[in-house]
């Protein structure tokens, strides 16, 4: 089972990954966007780490709802509302259980991803964060490791796609040949699940 501390570790691990990879995310965004995705995500997840320390939410759902609210209040751009909605809706779907199973997390994360799709109006293949998140939802029931791998593969698979949403869509054909920065950061978020679970058990513990 996954307890509150697992979800706090998930958010902290995401913050570290985003911090480590901020320059790469900004570099990807500079090719087909406006060169700020790394700094925006770093600011947002830094604020998430701070607020989780300050407020110590008591359940898995409360951790994610608070993290999502904090992202909406600090990130701006499209990433703030989209990532904020992802975590907030996942957290709401977890309810107030003190511990959740991997299957319950997979189902709740699916609800969060569906909310992102609805808010942004994107679908699979539009070269957005959904291209990493949708395969991750599929694989999450298996293990957190499998979800991380699926998200990473999904992000890399955005390279040949033409963007149809967000700023990269203005480039038309010229968006082809670049990894989508939103998909790349979404893969970091999903990969951080395995880190939170520790190595070896794939999160089935």
């Amino acid at each position, binding site marked *: 089972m996954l307890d509150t501390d697992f979800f706090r570790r998930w958010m902290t691990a995401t913050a570290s990954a985003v911090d480590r990879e901020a320059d790469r995310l900004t570099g990807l965004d500079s090719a087909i966007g406006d060169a700020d995705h790394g700094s925006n995500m770093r600011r947002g997840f830094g604020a998430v780490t701070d607020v989780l320390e300050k407020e110590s939410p008591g359940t898995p759902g409360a951790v994610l709802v608070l993290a999502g609210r904090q992202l909406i209040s600090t990130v701006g751009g499209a990433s703030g509302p989209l990532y904020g909605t992802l975590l907030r809706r996942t957290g709401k779907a977890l309810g107030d259980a003190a511990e959740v199973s991997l299957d319950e997390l997979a189902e709740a994360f699916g609800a969060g991803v569906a909310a992102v799709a609805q808010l942004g109006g994107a679908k699979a293949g539009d070269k957005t964060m959904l291209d990493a998140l949708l395969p991750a939802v599929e694989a999450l029931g298996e293990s957190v490791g499998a979800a991380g791998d699926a998200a990473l593969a999904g992000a890399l698979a955005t390279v040949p796609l033409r963007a*149809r949403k967000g700023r990269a869509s*203005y480039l038309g054909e010229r968006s082809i040949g670049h990894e989508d920065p939103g998909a790349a950061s979404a893969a970091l978020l999903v990969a951080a699940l395995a880190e939170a679970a520790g190595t070896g058990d794939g999160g089935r513990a």
Partner: protein
Amino acid sequence: MLINVPETVVADALRGIAAAHPDLTVDVENRLVVRRDAPVAGKVGLVSGGGSGHEPLHAGFVGPGMLSAACPGEVFTSPVPDQMVRAAAAVDSGAGVLFVVKNYTGDVLNFDMAAELAEDEGVRVARVLVDDDVAVADSTFTAGRRGTGATLFVEKIAGALADEGAPLEQVEAVARRVNESSRSFGVALGAVTTPAKGSPTFDLPPGELELGIGIHGEPGRERRPMMTSGEIADVAVHAVLDDLRPTGPVLALVNGMGATPLLELYGFNAEVRRVLSERGVPVARTLVGNYVTSLDMAGCSVTLCQADEEMLRLWDAPVRTPALRWGR
């Protein structure tokens, strides 16, 4: 770059705005610039905002006759809903608030969330979306046309009507009409450098230019060898006119992107006027300068708005903001 550290660029600028413009209320912590006399009794509030880096848009357009408040985001990043909700509360006199939103995914999402939250707090909110950039095809394959130079026309004309005490529905309607009557096209002669990245966000070699650029350093649709001012005016004005097809006089904004000298902008304006007269389009008013910029990008944009008599009257109405100031 003339900065301290990238992280404080926006806050530093806000402190500077406060120091320069005592007739504005600047809340550095919450990232708000508000008319000092807000809320004005019986007046509809006009709130806009967007990423920083487009100065004087939007904070430079706060004041009597234009915006009631502006919410600056991080550089090229939409502000957050909390800012817009605070701004709406600060300027609402009970007559309601109009959000002027440039059509970018992030701006739309954040302003939509803010509108919901503000309405929960009892503020009537209407929203007008500015999407004037003809370089982007408005199709299911894109996020829709970008909001650029027409934002200035919308904020000036709707702001003037709001100052006359018109109700929210009318202010919203004129704002919508101005947007529907406006089109823009932009050209970059050099790439833009954001404080966060510290180097140009796209690679534009000297001797080349980029047609159909946006205002966030996103590359344009087409790259060509350098053209003369006259050739650029031909491309830009034809692109705008072929989409707008005006049947009457236009307001013209010849806008600099930040690094192009006024000397060149005025020369470009002469070429714009030549093309317009070749196409038989009369010009009612012209504004030349750096108004909707993209940090240190070299280049320009042309915005034309087919203006009816009411729009012209409101354009001429007095305005008193840091960046636009005329009349009374």
